[in-house]
Every structure is written in structure tokens, then in C-alpha cells.
């Protein structure tokens, strides 16, 4: 079935998440949808699968306009979505998950019939799943396999996969790709949402790139793949595709470094033999020494482990192995409070969840930061400090404004204003996301002033310009690997794109 999305618009508050997006997926093809987090690709596929209702635009399936307002509607049109975190029921067994919500399930469960059906489908795709295992004991890859089998059993003709290759093993990836190719051959339409170039290149017939809510380019990959598919190792054509896609994703040229030299000689943060492990990723950093006043930019597609890395440096997660030294002190496996005492500060990306406290005002946040001084709140000092923060950081709000009433940009300014002083290491995710150009410039002025006072900054950003402009050195995260640091001045759009694509 051909799937067409025409002139889709969607606003979330003031954010134009989908701005006149059109996309056509031909039956029997695998269509890649690429873009950074926040580019609008998730919104688009959620509109198609009924999780989000569009503001305007049309969905056309097999030439007929489709009315999709809820996931149930989408299911009736045979559209199934595989979410990045599989939407399943972990304490239930595999076969129960397979049956739950299926229109084919009779009122009185017939586990034996379902199991026959399930085993047949699994065999078809060479999936090895135990119907009686609990889903909570499965790996993410196996849960995906379960979801695929379940969606197919429910008659899905269009399959949407959201970041399916995050956190699955190489074998599982091969299995998955083979299954998807097989399904495409059967005439199903497949939309493959990802930010991993290598996967898109290996699998997709066609790729659409989104940036800031708009489609910025499309590329037919078939001609490239026809020759290169069987070749071992990257070919020139391969490089050419990567270069073109990266260009679409990030723009043609990188900005020039603008940061003055601020770094001093002494090392403030030292990481040795660090092993980071989560249920999805495992990464290793042999050695990294950050000097006072230095800025390290962390590039890479989102979800490549940057957050885990920053949390570990902040003392909020513990490394599986290796050591962390701050200002010469060994802080490995020390409690978070020791990191705070050592002058480490972490500013999370999800401000209202991890960084600020809804219901408390700016002034109360300021006071909370002062809370190791004495018993009674020094209101005058807190008010003065809040006023100062509001003035210097140009926050649109009053000292008694509750933080959840601030706009996203103003919340970020508040977070920045709350940074303690003096500070040895500052860890940030997306320091200027949601800020306009002027404020971005201004925020970085403040941060560079901090560097001059001896603070080292490590920040992750999806804005490559920001990374190149303000970093001294850059490390790149890609698919569980971390590049050695490279001087920002030596980077080109092309070399950085290659590294983000996993080539280093």
C-alpha cells in the first residue's frame, strides 16, 4: 500500500513541530526518515499511527484519504508502529503480549492456537522467541521481534519503526534487517526512522531528511546500493552518500571557531579506563584529561551515550570500571555529594524533570542553592541574587514566578543562573536549545567568562555549529564508540559528518 502524507502541520504551543511536511512511501520499499532529535520525524510518524492528531494536512493510503484520529483507527488501516521503547507489557509472557489487543484473539483465550500462529511467524523470520518467557526477561531486540511478529499477525501492511537499532546486538540487527527486506519484498511499506546513517544506508531504498520540522531533502539510495551492496568495506560511493546525507542533516558549511583560548595548564578532570554500561550501551574511554578553562564539545547523534557519560562525570551514575579524578581527588564511586563538593555541576536537558522543581519560584531555587549557609533563609540575599540573575541572564519572569510558568528558553537561563560559583567542572546537555541567536551568543559569553575563571566545560549538543564554534576539543559518540578528542580547529563539516556516521 502506498502511504502518502500531504502538507502535514502540527504545533505544540509555539513550536512548529511539523511545518508543511509531505512524504510518500511506495509499497514494497523501505523508506528511511532521518533527522536529529527535535527535527519532527517522531511527530510525523506518530501522526500517521494515530498517537498525535495533526493540525492540518492529509493522509492518503493506497490513493484513498484515511481518517486517522487514534491508534485504533491506524490499526484498522493496517498501520503498525514499533516504538523505540517497545510498548509492551513486561510482566506478561511473550504469548500473552502476542494475544493482547489482537482482533483475532477470541474472548476465551486459546493460547495453543495463538502459539501455533506465533511459532509459524517466528520461523518465517528466523526469530527465536520462547512463547512462555516473560517479556521482562527479554532483550530489547527480542522485544522488537515480538512486536514485529505481533503487528504482522494483526495484519499490518505498513510498518513504522522508530529507532529500532538502538540497543540491539549485531546479530539481532542482521535478523531485523533481513526480516524487513523480506517484508518489503512481500509488498509492505516500511518507514524506518533513525538517526544512524550506516543503518539507513545499509537498509533503505530511499531516505528523507528532516530538520527543524521541515523536509530538507530526499535521496534515492538504490543506484548507490546496486553496486556497493556486496562489496566489503566502504566504497567511494558509500562515502559520497554519507557526505550528501550529513550535508542535508547539518548544512553545508560549519561555522568557524569563535572561542578565545581560555584553557590553563593544569588538569581538572581526568578519566582513566572508564567503562560505561547501561542496558542499551557499553562504552569505553581509555583516557581523557580536561584542563581548567577548556571546553570539550560532545558531538554525536542523540542517544549515543552522551547522557550516560555526562551523568557519570557528574557522579549521578557510577562507571562499571575505571576512575574519575577531579582536581586531583579520586572521586570514583564516591557519592554525588562528593562530586558537588568538588565543584562539579550538571545541567540536564529535561529541565522540568531533572533540573528544576515545578511549584518553586526562581527565588526559591536561588535560595535552595544557598541552602548550606545557616538555618534561616536569607530572603534579602535570595531576592537580590534572584533579581541579579534575572537581570544578568535576561530571564522573562519575576523572582516569585514559578519555574513551570517560564518558557523553555527562560527555564534554561534560570538553570544557567543557578550554577554555583566557583565551579571546577560544568557538564551540560544542549546548553542553548530553545534559545534565539542573540541569547545563545550571550549565554556563551557567560560560559566563556566561567572558563576564564578556571571552569572546564563538557557539553553535548546536536548543533554542530555550536560544537565547532565554542569547543577547544571535540569528542564524537557513535554507536557505543567514543572518538579520541580532536582540536576543533582541525574539524571540517565532512570529517565531523564521517565521524558521526561512525567512521573513525
Amino acid at each position, binding site marked *: 500500500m502506498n502511504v502518502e502524507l500531504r502538507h502535514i502541520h502540527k504545533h505544540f504551543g509555539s513550536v512548529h513541530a511539523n511545518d508543511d511536511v509531505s512524504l510518500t512511501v511506495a509499497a514494497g520499499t523501505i523508506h528511511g526518515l532521518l533527522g536529529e532529535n527535535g527535527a519532527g520525524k517522531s511527530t510525523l510518524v506518530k501522526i500517521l499511527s494515530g498517537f498525535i492528531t495533526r493540525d492540518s494536512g492529509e493522509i492518503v493510503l493506497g490513493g484513498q484519504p484515511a481518517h486517522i*484520529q487514534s491508534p485504533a483507527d491506524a490499526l484498522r488501516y493496517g498501520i503498525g508502529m514499533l516504538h523505540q521503547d517497545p510498548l509492551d507489557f513486561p510482566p506478561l509472557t511473550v504469548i500473552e503480549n502476542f494475544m493482547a489487543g489482537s482482533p483475532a484473539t477470541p474472548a476465551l483465550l486459546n493460547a495453543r492456537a495463538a502459539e501455533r500462529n506465533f511459532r509459524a511467524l517466528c520461523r518465517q523470520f528466523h526469530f527465536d522467541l520462547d512463547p512462555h518467557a516473560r517479556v521482562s526477561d527479554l532483550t530489547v531486540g527480542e522485544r522488537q521481534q515480538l512486536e514485529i511478529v505481533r503487528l504482522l499477525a494483526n495484519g499490518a501492511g505498513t510498518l513504522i519503526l522508530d529507532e529500532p537499532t538502538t540497543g540491539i546486538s549485531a546479530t539481532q540487527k542482521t535478523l531485523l534487517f533481513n526480516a524487513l527486506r523480506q517484508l518489503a519484498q512481500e509488498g509492505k511499506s516500511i518507514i524506518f526512522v533513525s538517526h544512524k546513517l550506516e543503518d539507513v544506508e545499509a537498509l533503505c531504498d530511499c531516505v528523507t531528511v528532516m530538520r527543524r520540522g521541515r523536509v530538507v531533502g530526499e535521496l534515492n539510495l538504490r543506484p548507490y546500493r546496486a553496486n556497493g551492496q556486496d562489496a566489503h568495506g566502504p566504497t567511494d560511493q558509500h562515502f559520497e552518500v554519507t557526505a550528501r546525507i550529513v550535508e542535508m542533516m547539518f548544512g553545508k558549511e560549519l561555522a568557524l571557531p569563535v572561542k578565545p583560548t581560555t584553557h590553563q595548564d593544569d588538569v581538572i578532570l581526568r578519566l582513566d579506563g572508564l567503562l560505561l554500561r547501561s542496558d542499551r550501551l557499553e562504552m569505553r574511554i581509555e583516557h581523557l584529561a580536561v584542563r581548567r578553562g577548556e571546553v570539550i564539545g560532545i558531538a554525536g547523534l542523540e542517544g549515543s551515550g552522551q547522557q550516560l557519560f555526562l551523568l557519570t562525570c557528574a557522579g549521578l551514575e557510577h562507571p562499571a570500571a575505571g576512575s574519575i579524578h577531579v582536581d586531583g581527588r579520586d572521586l570514583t564511586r564516591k557519592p554525588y555529594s562528593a562530586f558537588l563538593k568538588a565543584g562539579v555541576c550538571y545541567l540536564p536537558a529535561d529541565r522540568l524533570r531533572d*533540573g528544576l522543581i515545578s511549584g*518553586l519560584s526562581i527565588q526559591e531555587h536561588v535560595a535552595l542553592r544557598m*541552602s548550606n*549557609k545557616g538555618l*534561616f*533563609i536569607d530572603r534579602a540575599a535570595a531576592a537580590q541574587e534572584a533579581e541579579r540573575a534575572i537581570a544578568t541572564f535576561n530571564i522573562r519572569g519575576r523572582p516569585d514566578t514559578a519555574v513551570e510558568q517560564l518558557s523553555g528558553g527562560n527555564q534554561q537561563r534560570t538553570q544557567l543562573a*543557578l550554577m554555583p560559583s566557583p565551579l571546577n567542572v560544568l557538564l551540560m546537555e544542549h546548553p542553548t536549545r530553545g534559545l534565539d541567536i542573540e541569547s545563545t551568543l550571550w549565554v556563551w559569553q557567560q560560559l566563556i567568562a566561567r572558563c576564564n575563571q578556571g571552569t572546564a566545560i563538557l557539553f553535548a549538543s546536536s548543533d554542530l555549529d555550536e560544537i565547532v564554534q565554542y569547543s577547544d576539543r571535540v569528542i564524537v559518540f557513535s554507536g557505543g564508540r567514543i572518538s579520541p578528542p580532536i582540536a576543533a580547529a582541525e574539524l571540517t563539516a565532512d570529517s565531523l559528518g564521517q565521524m558521526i556516521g561512525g567512521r573513525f
Partner: protein
Amino acid sequence: MEGTAAPQTMNPPAPIAGLPPTVYRIGAFVISLILVALVIFISGASPATVIGRMVGGAFGTADQIGRVIATLSPLLLCAAGLVYTFNAGLYNLGVEGQITFGAIAATWTLRLLYPEGATASLLPPPAAIALAILVGGVGGIAWGLLAGALHVYGRISEIFAGLGLNFAATGIAIYLIFGPWKRPGVASLSGTQPFDESLWLGTFGRTEATPVALALGLMALIITIGVMRNTYFGLRLRAVGRNLRAAYVLGVPARRQLLSAFLICGLFAGVAGALQVVGVFHRLIPNISSNLGFLGLLVVMLVNFDPLWILPVAFFFSALNIGSLQLPLSLGLESSLSGVIQGLLVLFALLGRGLAQKYGRKPEG
């Protein structure tokens, strides 16, 4: 809007939507009053008569006013204590047990200092009473921290840990009353042997109200208002209660903060329990808490955790409790009407809050 899942996009634009939030709160309050009248009406009485009798029953004589104050004092202590746990995001249903255990600890102290029949001891009576109140507070702390430890370290819901400890405390009290501390002769539900009158807390005139209890209650409330408004401790508590994770990232020691809330609430509740022993019953009885802990929970819920409003609400609730005691005598009605009124007020305050949040006009900008 067709198909099985269509109603999922519910929240139809209700005809009552879009009014200022206060309208919903006042509306809910009015409904609760109507329901109170309805309940009284169902029981075959006239609401006006009943309310009249209750007012008379609470404020008719000095003795009655004294009883209101005698109820108010421990209620203030419990409500003040619960402000800490509520603001830390905890439902401390264990407060009843903390009162009971405080009462047990106080009784134990007095029995130790003044064994039955003894009139002289190491400590003179006033000092013995003070010590009993102090030990009562320590007992409350122990019971509070036990619930806190179960919650923080054992990851057991504080609600069930608290309820379980309530049963346990009542069990211990009953065991003591009918076992080791039983009255000479026959043990009974009426409690242990009353203490000598020298060990009773002094009262206002011949009423039941004791100045010490009232002073302690008011002090606890004032301290609590001060702590919540003016100290870093109170601010950290609110931070933890509203967003544990973010508070932790901002450097608040979350576990310590939670345990402190349990500790303080236990302390106040324990003191309240001790006061029930030395000021009201002068002995240990099975229901020594008189459900004041649960009443305190209602008070604090009604004022939405803001200690400033506790005094008037607690006073009103105490007056209801005492006023309703007249009902069985004069009208043949059950005294639990006070509980019905209190419950309806709080229930509809919660619903009104929800309605205001859901349908109330949002402030612009």
C-alpha cells in the same frame, strides 16, 4: 469519534468549563454543605436544630470550651507534624501509631518513676511529667523513623508501613493494658490504673484544658510555620516533595530529608500521645490516640499543606468533635456526625481543586 477507542479523546468541552478556578472551589464547598444538610435530614432531624445544638455543645459552658481546647492541643501537634511529611510528598498514615507509641512511652516513664502506690520518687511530679512528655516524643520518633526506614530503605509504601505500625502499636498498648500493666483485680478496656492526681497536668480552672498542652500545640504550629516559610530545611523539604530527582541533582540530600520529615512528625505525634496520657486520660487506654492523627491528616489536606491555615481549621474541627458529643444526649443522634462533616468538607475540597485544575480558566501568559 467512532470506533471502540474514540471516547479516549474525551474531556468534552463541558458546559461548566472556562470559569475562574475559584468558582469550582466555592461550588464544591456549597455542594458539601448541601450534602451535610441532606445527611442530617436523612437521619430524621432538622439541620438547623442539629447545628444549633452542636454550637451550643461546643461553646455553651466553660467546661465545653475547655474540652474543645483539650482536643485542639494534640490536634495542632499532629497537624503540624504532618505538614512536614506532606510537604515531603509522604502520606504518613502511621501518625496514629506514632501517637499511641508516644503514649506508651510516656506511661512507661511515669510507671517507672512512680510504681503503683508510690507517692515519692527521684523526680518531683512536675519533672516526672516533663520527662514523660519528652520520652513520649522519643517514642514517637522511634515509631516514625521505623516507618521512614521501611519506606526509604525497604522501599515499602509509607502508607502500608504506617498502617501496619498502627496495628502494631495498638496491639502493644492492648497487650500492656491487659497484661503487665493490668489494673489490680480486673483488666478492662477502660485502661491502666489512673495515675495519682499529682501526676496530672494542671488545667485551666476546673476544665479539661491544660495550658501546657495548648502551649506545646501552639508552639509546634508556630515553629512549623516558621520552618516552612523561613528555613532552608523547609525549602528543601518542599523541593524533595515536589521533585525528588531534581532536588537531588540540585544537591539536596533526599534520603536524609525524608527521614527528617518522619522524625519530626513522629516527635510531634509522640508528644501529643504523651499529653493524652498526662493531660486527658491520666492513664493508658487502648484508643489513646482518639483518632486525632487521622483527623490531623484531614486538617492538613483541607489546608492544602499550608500551615498558616491550620489553627482555624483545627479549631473548627475540634469544635465539631466536641459539639457533636451533645447529639446522642439531646437528639438521640450519633456523635460521628462531626466526622461526616469533616470528611465531606475535605472530600469536596479535593474534588473542587481537581475541577478547578481541569476546567478552570487558565491565567493568560
